[in-house]
């Protein structure tokens, strides 16, 4: 008798050949990409989506979906996706990156794409560390948080404060833009934000940006309980969850 295998239900837009995925156990990327996959399915846009992924852990999503995908350089997913969208506005273009890619090495691209109101969607996963390179301080590392380059804790007098991405983008973005911060700890809300972001692009209203608070137990060196506590309770103290800019101005 064959062992009965219970397969989790995967979004149709996922690429089954690359599953189980390559992210570490406990990593939040899988949840963000699950939300995105469900949104792609619900909007029935699998044939129109172009997905771009950055360097860092996000690059592991280069064959995650059955959608056309390009893996780029660190911080450069935004301009590649901008270039694609400008050349072929029929496509629904998504730039997927981490906090280092979006807020440090590629911050000029994020700022200028937002200011130009480029009609693309950027999804940025904030796990407070450079994870692929082994857990160095990121722009989003919390005050006093220990990382490989802040072994005694992040001293904000020396290294500055964590970057508040959606707040910054909302401040410079123009009417028509959509900006939100969600969390994998609030999956349904995160999925709603991602859906609204992509619908914003489909409506041609302009730039849409969703930051997703996420987990990295590997580099946080935390067990399941502490990992969840950090993303659910501690991170939102500094990174408030919600909508920062909604066309027409009705933030949740």
């Amino acid at each position, binding site marked *: 008798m064959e062992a009965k295998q219970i397969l989790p239900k995967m979004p149709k837009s996922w690429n089954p050949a690359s599953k189980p995925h390559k992210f570490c156990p406990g990593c939040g990327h899988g949840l963000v990409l699950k939300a995105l996959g469900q949104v792609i399915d619900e909007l029935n846009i699998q044939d129109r989506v172009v997905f771009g992924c950055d360097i860092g852990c996000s690059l592991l999503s280069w064959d995650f979906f059955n959608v056309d995908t390009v893996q*780029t350089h660190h911080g*450069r997913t935004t301009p590649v996706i901008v270039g694609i969208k400008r050349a072929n506005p029929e496509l629904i273009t998504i730039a997927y990156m981490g906090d280092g890619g979006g807020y440090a090495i590629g911050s000029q691209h994020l700022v200028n794409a937002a200011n130009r109101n480029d009609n693309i969607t950027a999804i940025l996963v904030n796990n407070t560390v450079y994870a692929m390179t082994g857990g160095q301080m990121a722009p989003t590392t919390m005050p006093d948080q220990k990382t490989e380059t802040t072994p005694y804790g992040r001293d904000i007098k020396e290294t500055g404060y964590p970057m508040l991405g959606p707040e910054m983008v909302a401040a410079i973005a123009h009417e028509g833009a959509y900006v939100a911060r969600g969390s994998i700890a609030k999956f349904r809300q995160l999925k709603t934000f991602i859906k609204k972001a992509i619908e914003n692009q489909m409506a041609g209203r302009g730039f849409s940006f969703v930051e997703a608070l996420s987990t990295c137990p590997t580099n946080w060196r935390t067990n399941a309980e502490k990992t969840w506590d950090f993303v659910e309770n501690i991170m939102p103290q500094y990174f408030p969850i919600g909508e920062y800019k909604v066309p027409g101005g009705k933030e949740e």
Partner: protein
Amino acid sequence: MGSKPIEGERKVFMTGNEAVAWAALAAGADIMYGYPITPQNEIMQYWTRLGPKYNKKFLQTEDELSAGFTTIGGVLAGRRAFTATAGPGNVLMQEPMSMAEAMRIPTVVVIQQRGGPSTATVIYSQQEVTLTCFGGNGEGLRVVYSTSSHQDLFDYTIKAFNTAWKYRFPTFVLSDGYQAKMRESVVIYDPEARGIRMVPTEPFLGKAGTPGEDRPAAHLRNTYNIEEELLEVLSKDIEEYERVAPEIIEYDAYNTENADLLVIAHGVVFRSAAMAVKELANQGYKIGYFRPITLRPFPREQLRQAAQQAKQLLVVESAYGQLLKIVQDNLYGLNVPIKTLLRPGVGITPEEIAEKAKALLAGKEA
């Protein structure tokens, strides 16, 4: 407004930057991405004046990194996309072009060399040869055309799109501030009227059909997990580059048979060299020249053939030995003496070359 920017052909008097913009239009380029830097600015300025009349697009980006990566995006979407830069902008451009090299993305970049290193001058040099040929953390699997006139700029800008899309290696038109800014006569033409067929483009991403159902998804990457995986990809690319190199290589040569002196120069310096060489040849000197038009891939066998008949060589360039290094590398094993006239960042006149050549021919200079 006519559908074709240029009907047939016509003779015009314009700057090199203007010639590039017209060439890109004539070649059917769809979109330019760019960031201002002297001396290439007028390429964007003419493109943004001419383009909208023919539904051409332009994006002014936040820097050259973005100009290069958006150009990559445009190409991935299946458009003839290009950018132009110079000097420090060319330094930044190497990051995106290294991705284009890794992923065989047919980008076209026009380089108007200025003085270096760093900000240096906005005027002129030939100091971006090494950078344009071998920039990036790779093997230099790219095509570099070195132009010496406005006609070259027009011809090779059109050709660059075809070379890029036919062979799928990033292609550069390497020019300089002199060519960019001065005006001279040039015949601009509709490529079709000359029997030049533009190589069709196709999207890498966003093709028809649902990925995973009607067709496999495009999963484009430049990251590899293991050394052997990378080596496999690189070996294939290198093998292909070497296989197509003879089809791509271009050069010009004159009077190379048993020359007492063979002058080697590229770009605008070649024009001075050619004037000097022809003048001296007319006076009865056994002197010839060799001009590599493609600096990558380099006309190795053709130069060796010419060089081994010569008593000595003279490499002339507005850089401190960038062409020289390429020449030395390609002539390895020949024992013909190589003399130099190296003037980094400044122009070189025919008189200077003739004077140096005469001294060498008279045995007065070692």
